[in-house]
């Protein structure tokens, strides 16, 4: 796999997404360039093909429902463009090491308050998932087996318990933050190294050139 830091991987994925999303409508030439870049990106990241295919298939079904009423010509361009964006982002997400979404998230080029909220939400999701896993294991050890039974249990007793557990946990985490001087701002560093910054700048320049060209041809 390509040896790039997670923040840089996220930012490069975003360059492809933003560049493709801003292409002029019906600019198939530009779209094919982005398609090639997205495929190369997926290959460089060594995205697992089977999982990637499954995810893209599911996402495209939903997208088709939204775009097909616009007519074939418009829908086909939108679908291919969405496919390229999804290919880039899914390749990134599927190759993230476990529990490292937050590490990548902190490099998002958005204002600090939004970033902090995203970061805490990401961490909260981790907590929620670990609580679900624990509850699932605990239920299984006490004889609750099979997906159907688990789903029935999930729909009834578990939601309330999960809410209380996660709320309790969130309160304890907040107490730990306060005890270490939390004053409403998370100290987040996401500085890219000079070499990484140059790579990112180069990627933006290439993307801008392709996208701007699509309006001139």
């Amino acid at each position, binding site marked *: 796999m390509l040896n790039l830091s997670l923040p840089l991987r996220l930012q490069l994925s975003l360059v492809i997404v933003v560049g493709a999303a801003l292409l002029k409508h019906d600019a198939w030439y530009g779209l094919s360039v982005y398609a090639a870049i997205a495929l190369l990106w997926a290959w460089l990241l060594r995205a697992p093909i089977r999982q990637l295919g499954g995810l893209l298939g599911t996402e495209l079904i939903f997208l088709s429902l939204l775009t097909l009423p616009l007519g074939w010509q418009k829908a086909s361009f939108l679908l291919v463009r969405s496919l390229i964006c999804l290919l880039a982002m899914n390749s990134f997400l599927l190759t993230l090491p476990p529990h*490292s979404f937050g*590490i990548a998230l902190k490099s998002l080029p958005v204002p600090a308050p939004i970033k902090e909220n995203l*970061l805490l939400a990401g*961490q909260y999701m981790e907590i929620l998932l670990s609580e679900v896993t624990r509850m699932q294991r605990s239920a299984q050890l006490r004889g609750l087996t099979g997906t159907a039974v688990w789903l029935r249990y999930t729909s009834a007793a578990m939601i309330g318990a999960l809410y209380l557990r996660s709320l309790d946990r969130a309160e304890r985490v907040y*107490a730990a933050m306060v005890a*270490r*001087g*939390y004053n409403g701002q998370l100290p987040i560093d996401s500085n890219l190294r000079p070499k990484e910054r140059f790579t990112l700048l180069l990627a933006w320049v290439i993307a801008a050139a392709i996208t701007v060209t699509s309006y001139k041809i």
Partner: protein
Amino acid sequence: MVYAYSRQEPVLQRISFSLNKGDRVALMGATGSGKSTLLENLIGLKEPQSGKITINGIPVQPKTLPQIRRQIGFSFQDANDQLFMPTILEDVTFGPRNYGMSAAAASDRARQLLADFGLEAYANRSAHELSGGQRRLAALAAILALEPTILILDEPTNGLDPAWRRHLAQVLFKLPVEVILIASHDLHWLGRVTQRALVLSGGRIQIDGDIQPLLQDGTTLDQLGLPVDW
């Protein structure tokens, strides 16, 4: 001081004690005796119904909490609650940076602490990738990064194997803190790292004295719900 969870029998009643510079104190008591509640009162996470807590002459009140918490390093019972940043390094630098230390200085201090605990290889990884014992050590590193003068640890040896328990004891001996208060059920470990024992039972401090004679007195400990050999 007195503390009760709403409309219930007080968990802590007429608690009174003082800790002096140089004290290494064990807070002992059976499960549910109120040890964690007492510790949380000390750093203002809970507010007593009556009574007063003073740290270095400063009363623990909402307006003095930042000042109080700057002096106290508090480690929670569950290390998972204490690690909330994306990476271990950021978790350890969280406290110092909140108190105005530069990112570079905080990072240097954090890396040194992580190296002391054998966690330098995990600095840029998520806490979810660590074992229970490693998380405990990372949480302690996060506390020590604040260079507190008072250290309060709630069940610090939970999930640590004997080698790490010994290592933790050695680290504690070297720390330049003025007071250490440790709540734990690990009586033998407490006997090695503390000199004085406070024993909570029935919401009160039943014993306040030297820990060694107490650890020899199996009958008393048994009566307080702390059988030594179990």
